[in-house]
């Protein structure tokens, strides 16, 4: 078990290294291909050539790509110095560089954005799992009924309607129309948990609607498959109450496949729910990803990408480890 864990951790680190290599490579190649100059992006187009050259030296843009990549990695692990002669800027570890436009360190920006994204993802995840599983199970038990068809129609709508539509709809109804809810805003949980929840409820519901739809369909399909299994018949033949048959024997195997999907979905969301954050104007990782793209800010994009990759890899690892516990047929080792 320990050996397996260590192997998986090494695996995860290697995956992340590959991700840094690829993303760094892409962001090095993009300016070349488009003919834009990172130094110019950094300092502005009107700068005099000497200043541009100074910046270029300071950022190490004249170094070979391997050296640049190495310095980038070193910056994450140990911090780095940007220097152009006497002009030295120290960027302490973990260093993801400076934004081009505002000359801020990328790492603190993203760390500040992280709680917002985490709050959004966790809250929505709880909601969509509860709703999706509940509706999915009821639909499976009443297959073909009005209820089933109704839920599945709503679920289809949920899967099809994009966030910017449902989000704006929710905003216009609940915030501007009925004025039941305040406009979405982030208050740190430890400052005021109630404000934290009320400020995020709308984005949660909007995001959860999209996922709950998928989960309801998935749960329904899994449950229908499980309820046709021989061991469900055995459970009934033992004389168990129908509640136990469904609630214990059925759910246990019907929900297990959801764990994989759930882990990956949460992992992906932790890298930033770009649309939701944009619609509700929340400054999480997704917001900064959007900013980075808009302003051609390579260090920011690189940073957000690494965060996203990190979460996916970690969630994958957690799911794999969890499977060893919840599915006895999976032997870790």
């Amino acid at each position, binding site marked *: 078990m320990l050996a397996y864990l260590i192997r998986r951790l090494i695996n995860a680190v290697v995956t992340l290294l590959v991700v840094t290599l690829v993303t760094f490579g892409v962001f090095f190649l993009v300016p070349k291909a488009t003919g834009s100059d990172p130094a110019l992006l950094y300092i502005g187009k009107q700068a005099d050539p000497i200043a541009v050259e100074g910046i270029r030296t300071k950022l190490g843009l004249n170094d070979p790509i391997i050296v640049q990549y190495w310095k980038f990695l070193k910056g994450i692990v140990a911090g780095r110095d940007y220097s152009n002669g006497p002009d030295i800027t120290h960027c302490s570890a973990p260093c993801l560089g400076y934004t081009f436009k505002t000359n801020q360190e990328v790492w603190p920006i993203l760390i500040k954005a992280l709680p917002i994204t985490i709050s959004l993802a966790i809250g929505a995840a709880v909601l969509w799992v509860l709703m999706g599983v509940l509706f999915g199970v009821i639909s499976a038990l009443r297959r073909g009924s009005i209820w089933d068809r109704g839920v599945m129609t709503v679920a289809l709508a949920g899967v099809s309607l994009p966030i910017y539509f449902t989000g704006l709809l929710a905003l216009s109804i609940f915030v501007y129309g009925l004025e039941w809810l305040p406009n979405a805003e982030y208050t740190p949980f430890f400052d005021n948990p109630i404000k934290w929840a009320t400020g995020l409820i709308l984005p949660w519901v909007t995001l959860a609607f999209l996922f709950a739809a998928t989960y309801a369909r998935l749960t329904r399909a899994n449950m229908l498959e499980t309820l046709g*299994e021989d061991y469900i*018949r055995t*459970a009934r033949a*033992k004389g*168990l*109450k129908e509640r136990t048959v469904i609630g214990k024997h059925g759910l246990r195997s019907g929900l297990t496949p959801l764990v994989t999907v759930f882990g990956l979905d949460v992992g992906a969301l932790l890298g930033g729910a770009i649309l939701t954050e944009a619609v509700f104007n929340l400054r999480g990782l997704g917001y900064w990803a959007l900013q980075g793209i808009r302003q051609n800010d390579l260090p920011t994009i690189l940073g957000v990408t690494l965060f996203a990759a990190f979460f996916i890899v970690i969630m994958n690892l957690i799911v794999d480890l969890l499977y060893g516990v919840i599915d006895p047929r999976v032997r870790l080792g």
Partner: protein
Amino acid sequence: MSTSSASIGASIQRPYLEVKDLTIRFETDDGIVQAVSSSTFSVEKGQTLGIVGESGSGKSVTSLGILGLHRTRSNAKVTGEIWLDDEELITASDEKVRLLRGGKMAMIFQDPLSAMHPYFTVGSQIVEAYRVHHPGLSKKVAREKAIDMLARVGIPQPERRFNDYAHQFSGGMRQRAMIAMALVNDPQLLIADEPTTALDVTVQAQILDLIRDLQEEFGSAVIMITHDLGVVAELADDVLVMYGGKIIEKGPALDVFQNPQHPYTWGLLGSMPRLDRAVRDRLTPVKGTPPSLINLPDGCAFHPRCPYAGRNGNRSFTDVPVLRDAGLGGEHQVACHLPAEERTKIFQQEVLPNL
């Protein structure tokens, strides 16, 4: 059941299990599946009834019907009477049948790997089966009972195996565990649905021995469902042969084996490999395929596959034969349009020499 009859003082003594006119049909999108038609049979305690037939002949549906497992399927329609220990089950409430299920009547399923839950330990599944019929019993006592049962069905190191999952058992051990689970509440009626199908031959013999020993020990009534005539010959006191959802021949096992009356039974016997005869070029299988239960052939359901269908005018093609006395004395019954003398003649002259 001398004690119960004495206490009730009933004028008519019913067999322990009596099934009368049992009909089970499923309404599906493709039409009505007539899975079992007017089946009547009975089993006494300590006796074994073998039900034989091809896949789709209604064997398993009959047994699931006795357990009331069609109640959860909204499209199933069950009519007739099922008397278990002087209680009628078809009209009984769901809750009442549930309490009998796994208690007074239990079932051993084929393919225990899929019939046991993959995510719960074998031990916990047995404990669950025990506790549902012994509410209020502590987990510890139930655990001891389960370990005791595992030991009783011949599983070595039962304390250790208690915590294993079904996939960690070998095929034979898994079927033993399944049997332990079925027997944990001392059922008076045990239905074994092809209990040896997925097992290799040496293990099959062990499992059959085990069921027989346990039957002697518990004095239960046993219904053995199988397509393996060897199993029936080994264990059964009485035999039902089913075809297309109907009983087409029934009687004491000895009679049915020594003097089979229905051409389908001849076919079954003819398709059985034997070692004690000279090696023939090939076995004589029953030609054709089993009928669709949605659209049974008119007349005798077996007529499209029966080599003797035209021998008695057109009746095989138009009239459904009724199960009636085979004319041999005793309990032997058959549903066939051929006259008794002709059946005996065909069997003696054409069938027996090739068996």
